Structure formats: structure tokens, C-alpha cells
């Protein structure tokens, strides 16, 4: 099925919603923020996610996973987005597994897929080098060095880097092709600078100075390493879009709840046609967003060759809708929407950060035009 969840996915959604609303409500993010948590997410929660079996959705059974596919991963990410849960789920269970499945050697799969399925490791992706996502502008270089490589470069906005066991780094090899490398964040020459961002996450900027890598650091299990790299980005976009859709939905629900209860000049503001029309319009935008997100995820599962267009479109739409839903949420809340006491502002902040990651709506529109041949 393309859009409707199958029974397993429905059960997964219900359990995910139940678990996260209890184990990591929005207050959990507030605590990480106020404690200035150095990593930005809870390892304890990560462990419990593994116990729920979520970390293995993209890992095949041979490597200890349940292999439910991107559609199921999206179900979990949507609930993560609803609760603003900070976790390495996207970077590890989705992008980590995807990278290994797409470009990993058998040895690398052996080494890491079981750990991912078991929630025993955290992956972080060192991809972008510019202020805005740009998958072609990669200057990081890995030059042959004996049997291994020497890595140099500077990366931006590496999500979950401060809590990562493995860095997956995009760098150009001598043939100028972009390849992915598995790098130990503790290795000599790796310098991580944490950046506390507006959404209370802690991505890092990372400098790689003459970092020595052994030969097996190169992920060369794919026929075409750049195709694998791009497909990885598609998977990341679809996953991030699913999370953004959850964020948008919850921002909308919270706001509807609020205006239904709010009175002004003695009448419920929910009766004002001006607000009603905007809310109805927003509902339509959310429906459009949901369709694109589902389509992108199931396309990754069933027609990967079609994924680029749908993933770019889904990420662009999810970015635009999540930001709109949260912005309208603040406006409809009025003054209290501006206070840190209410959650709606946190949704607005997260929509901005998650929207930027792997390309915002402008980037996505450009991709859609390019992929459509105009």
C-alpha cells in the first residue's frame, strides 16, 4: 500500500505515540536544554527505543533487525516530531543503516548493523561544508596514504556529533568522486566544536586535520559511490520530512485546542471566520504534506529510482508547512504564544532547524525543477 499504513505500522504508531508521550514529552527537551546537556539527547531514552525494536527497522534480520522499511521508520519519526524528542534516531537508525545498506562492505555491515539494531552505537553524518545545504560543494579530501587515507576538511552542522561513536564523512577521493568514510570521532586530528542551536539541539562543526584512516574506513560496497551518497541524502530528506510533518501536526492540534478555549470580547476566538479560514487552509496544507511524506517513504521502499523527486518535494513541503503551522500557532496563541512557558514556540524553533537540515523549501524547489528537467 502506498499511503495507508499496514497493520504492523499502525500498531507501531500507536505504541510509539504511547511510549513517547510518556517517556519523552516536550518537558524532556526542556530539561536537556535547561541542564545544558553536553550531548543534546538522552542515551537512556535511546536504549529504550532499541528495546522497543525501533532501531532495527532498516536492518535486515541477518544483522539482527526487523527490516520493516522506510515507511515504518517514518511512522516513528512522525511521533518523534510530535513530541520534539531529541534522539539520534534519524542519524543512526535511518541514515546510519541506510549508508551501510547502500555503501557498506560486508565487513562494515557485520561490524555496525547489529550494533545499530541493538541501539549500542550512535552515528553522526559530516556532510555539509557551507551555511546552506549543498551536496555538490564538497571540498573535504581523502588522499591515499599507504594502505589508508589522510583526511582533511571542515564540516558544518553535524547533528548528534557530540554523542556519536561513528562519524560518516563525505569527502572526495583522488578521482574527485565523493565517497563516504567511517571515522572515529576520537581519532587524532578530529576537532569537534559543539554549537547549541535554537532548537536546543547540539550539532557540531568539525575540523579534520591530517586524520589518518585505515583502508577499511572507506565505504566502497556500492558500484557507484556518488549514487549511494545521493540516495543516502534522499533517505535523510524523507526521514526529516516525516519528523517535520509530526511537528507540524502537533503544532496545529495544540493551536486548535487553544483557540477553542480562548475567549475575546466575550466570544470564543475559534468562532472568528478569519481564524477559521486560516485554520482550514492550514489543514489542507497538512493533508498535502502528509501525502508527499508517505509517498516519499514508500517510494524509497518500493521504487528507489523514483525517490529523488518525491524526497525533495516532501522535504520542501514539510519545511514550508511545519514553519507555517508553528508561525500561525504563535499568532493564534497571541501573547502567551511568545512566552517560553507555552510549547508552541519550541515547535517553531524546531521547524526552523529541521527545515534547514538537508535543504529547506527553496533548495527542495530547485531540486524538483532540476529533476523535472527545467
Amino acid at each position, binding site marked *: 500500500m502506498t499511503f495507508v499504513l499496514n497493520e504492523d505500522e499502525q500498531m507501531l504508531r500507536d505504541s510509539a505515540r504511547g511510549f513517547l508521550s510518556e517517556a519523552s514529552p516536550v518537558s524532556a527537551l526542556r530539561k536537556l536544554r535547561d541542564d545544558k546537556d553536553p550531548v543534546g539527547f538522552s542515551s537512556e531514552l535511546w536504549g529504550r527505543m532499541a528495546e522497543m525494536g525501533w532501531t532495527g527497522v532498516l536492518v535486515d534480520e541477518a544483522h539482527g533487525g526487523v527490516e520493516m522499511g522506510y515507511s515504518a521508520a517514518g511512522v516513528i519519526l512522525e511521533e518523534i516530531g510530535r513530541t520534539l524528542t531529541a534522539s539520534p534516531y534519524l542519524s543512526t537508525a535511518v541514515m546510519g543503516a541506510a549508508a551501510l545498506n547502500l555503501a557498506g562492505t560486508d565487513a562494515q555491515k557485520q561490524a555496525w548493523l547489529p550494533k545499530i539494531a541493538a541501539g549500542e552505537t550512535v552515528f553522526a553524518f559530516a556532510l555539509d561544508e557551507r551555511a546552506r545545504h549543498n551536496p555538490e560543494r564538497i571540498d573535504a579530501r581523502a588522499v591515499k596514504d599507504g594502505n589508508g587515507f589522510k583526511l582533511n576538511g571542515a564540516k558544518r552542522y553535524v547533528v548528534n556529533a557530540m554523542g556519536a561513536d561513528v562519524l560518516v564523512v563525505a569527502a572526495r577521493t583522488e578521482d574527485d568522486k565523493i565517497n563516504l568514510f567511517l571515522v572515529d570521532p576520537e581519532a587524532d586530528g578530529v576537532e569537534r566544536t559543539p554549537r547549541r542551536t535554537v532548537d536546543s539541539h547540539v550539532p557540531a562543526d568539525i575540523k579534520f586535520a591530517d586524520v589518518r584512516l585505515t583502508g577499511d574506513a572507506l565505504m566502497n560496497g556500492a558500484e557507484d559511490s556518488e549514487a549511494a551518497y545521493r540516495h543516502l541524502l534522499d533517505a535523510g530528506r524523507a526521514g526529516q520530512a516525516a519528523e517535520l510533518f509530526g511537528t507540524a501536526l502537533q503544532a496545529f492540534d495544540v493551536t486548535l485546542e487553544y483557540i477553542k478555549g480562548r475567549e475575546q470580547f466575550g466570544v470564543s476566538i475559534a468562532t472568528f471566520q478569519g481564524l477559521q479560514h486560516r485554520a*482550514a487552509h492550514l489543514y489542507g496544507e497538512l493533508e498535502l504534506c502528509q501525502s508527499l511524506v508517505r509517498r516519499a517513504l514508500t517510494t524509497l521502499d518500493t521504487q528507489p529510482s523514483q525517490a529523488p523527486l518525491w524526497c525533495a518535494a516532501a522535504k520542501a513541503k514539510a519545511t514550508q508547512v511545519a514553519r507555517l503551522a508553528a508561525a500561525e500557532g504563535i499568532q493564534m496563541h497571541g501573547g502567551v504564544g511568545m512566552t517560553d512557558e507555552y510549547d508552541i514556540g519550541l515547535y517553531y524553533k524546531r521547524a526552523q532547524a529541521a527545515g534547514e537540515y538537508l535543504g529547506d523549501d527553496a533548495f*527542495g524547489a530547485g531540486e524538483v*525543477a532540476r529533476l523535472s528537467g527545467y
Partner: protein
Amino acid sequence: MSLDAFRKETRAWLEANCPESMRKPIRSEADICWGGKNWTFASDDQKVWLERMAEKGWTVPTWPTEYGGGGLSKDEAFVLKEEMKAIGARSPLDSFGIWMLGPALLKYGTHDQKAEHLPPIARGEIRWCQGYSEPGAGSDLVSLRTKGELEDDHYIVNGQKVWTSYADKSDWIFALVRTEADAPKYNGISFLLIDMDQPGVSTKPIKLISGKSPFCETFFDDAKALTKNRLGEAGQGWEIAKYLLSHERAGIVSEAAFGGLNPVTAAHQSGEVEEDGRLSDPILRGDVARLTIDGLAFDATMRRVKEEADHGEGVGARASMLKYIGTELNKRRNELNMSALGYDGLLWEGENEHDGDPARSWLRSRANSIEGGTSEIQLNIVAKRVLDLPSA
């Protein structure tokens, strides 16, 4: 009979009975068969194709056989549709009788009414039009002024209807008429079937900003409507109309959403692209890209809603959401078509038959968000029925 068996049989029958020329894509309005007393067939094949299909009841596959239908199950009808599509067979008959009156008759009609009116619809012998709106009433059917006074076995109808599509070509009209003068607004309206072949009924075409249109004004001047041709109870008209409006909505959306010119093709036609296919104007390109995204999203949403329906999840008031999005999107698409065509798009009349088509389509699209319930009304419905927001 199993579905597969039915499919085989159907395929064979279509292969044997669908004339070659009826397997060619529709080129223009003229290729569509509307039927009716005054219908002149575009070709013998069109006539033959209608007769053969009508004989099997496949002009209205799911209607009961006793009323001229095919008596097919939902699944069988779907198979028939697929098989027709497979050979590119045209629809043998289109009409408001099939799309709108039929469903209403099946739901609200008596046996006698069904027996009298459904078969002629199925055979394309009688063409129907719809008479709801009135001047100054718009979507507000409550303030209808066309009234019918009961006189022994019939109503005397006086008043005026507007936006009655193809009224000038139709044989009968199904109309909302205020028959219960003293009943509260919503309960005073009845649903009457009126023979237009009488002196008391006349029509006048309406010219639109997009040019000629199928719309007419229809005037009732002491027109007669037999009480036995009142559908449902006296005063039940509003309920029946609401039931039908949802059908109409679906129609407009699919029309709005699919097919037709798009800005990229338009830019290629007007030469506003670079060697590599990129749109020449980088800012227009951005606008088109965002349209493409919403187009993909809407297309996916239509499929999703259908898939959900197949899984028993009703569309309900979300039809209003689809109508709103689809029509607004179609307006945007037409606006960007015009921008991509530039000066070419402004052409209104020229040597060639199709000169000015883009401009006409662009202007016609403005009506999408008005007909079948305005966008504002759709938003009201979504706010109240889907989002459960309180009324003022």
C-alpha cells in the same frame, strides 16, 4: 462468476463491439455523447457504440438491471472501467442524468419514478439539466424564490434559474422549487422533475468572460410539474440537493486537477527556455517549481483519499478540502501558464481554431472556486465539520 472470468468475457465483448473510431482519444467537445431527444450523433460509430453499451446496461454499469443498468458489483464495474481504458474506449454516454439525477433517483425515488426516468437516462434518450441557483442567490439555496403552487395533480412553477448548464439542449430539468410558502426556509423547498417541452419553460445562454459557455438562464412562466414527478417528500428538496452537491464537487475537482497545459510545456511552446531546458526567467522558474510540488502533493492526496476509501475510510467533509485545494491549484496553474506563455498567452482570436485556448482556459479556471460551492464555503465546511470549530 469470478472477477477473472468476468474480465475475460468483458475484454472479448469490448474487443468485438467497440468500433475502431470509438477507441480514439477525445479531441473536442463534439466527440462527447450527451444524448437526448435532439441529439445528432457525431458519427454512426458513436450511435452504434451507445446502442450496444446501453443494451448491456453498461452506460450505467452499477444501476439495477430493471432500470436499464448493468447490475454490476463495484468490483465488476471497476474491471469494466479498466478494460475500457485498456483499449482506449470512449465513454458511450455522459450526462447530468447519469452523474447527478440518477444517484438521487436511486436513493430517494419511488419504484414508479425509477421505472419512468432511469431507463431513458441509461439509453441516452432524455437529457437532463440541473436547476438550483437563482440570480442573487449564489450558493445560498435557502433564499430561493422560484415557487410552485399546488393545483390538484400538479404544481404551477414560476421563477428563474441561473447557471443551468446545457439547459438550451436539455429535455427535462430537475429543479429546486419553493412549494411550502409558510414552512421554515430549509423545509419549504421541493425537488421537482420538470418537462422542458412546454410553453411555460424558456432558456437563454449566458456569455462568460471566457467566451461562449454551456450555462443558461432558465425561466418558468406558469410551467407545469406533475406532483408524481416530485422526488422525495414535499420540503425534502434541500436534503436531496445537499446529497447531490457532493457528487458535483467531486466532478469539479477531478476536472480541475488533471490534464491540461502546464507552465513547463507552455514555456517550451513560447520558447521561454534555454538550451538545457531551464526556464529562461529564474524567478518564474521558482514559482513553477513550487507549483510542481503542490501539484505532486495534490495528486498524491487524491490517490491517498481513494486508497483510504478502498479501506473503508469515508471521504466525508474532506471532499470540501479537496475541492478547495484542487480549484485554487488549478487557478494558480493557469496563471503560471499565462506567465510562461507571455505575449503568446494573451492572444484571443487568431487564424487557428485553437488560438486563445490558453487564455480561455485561464479565465474559465476562475469559476472553479465559485461553482459547486465557493472556496469560502468549502473553508467554512472544513472549519466546522472537520476541525469542529464552533459557529459564531
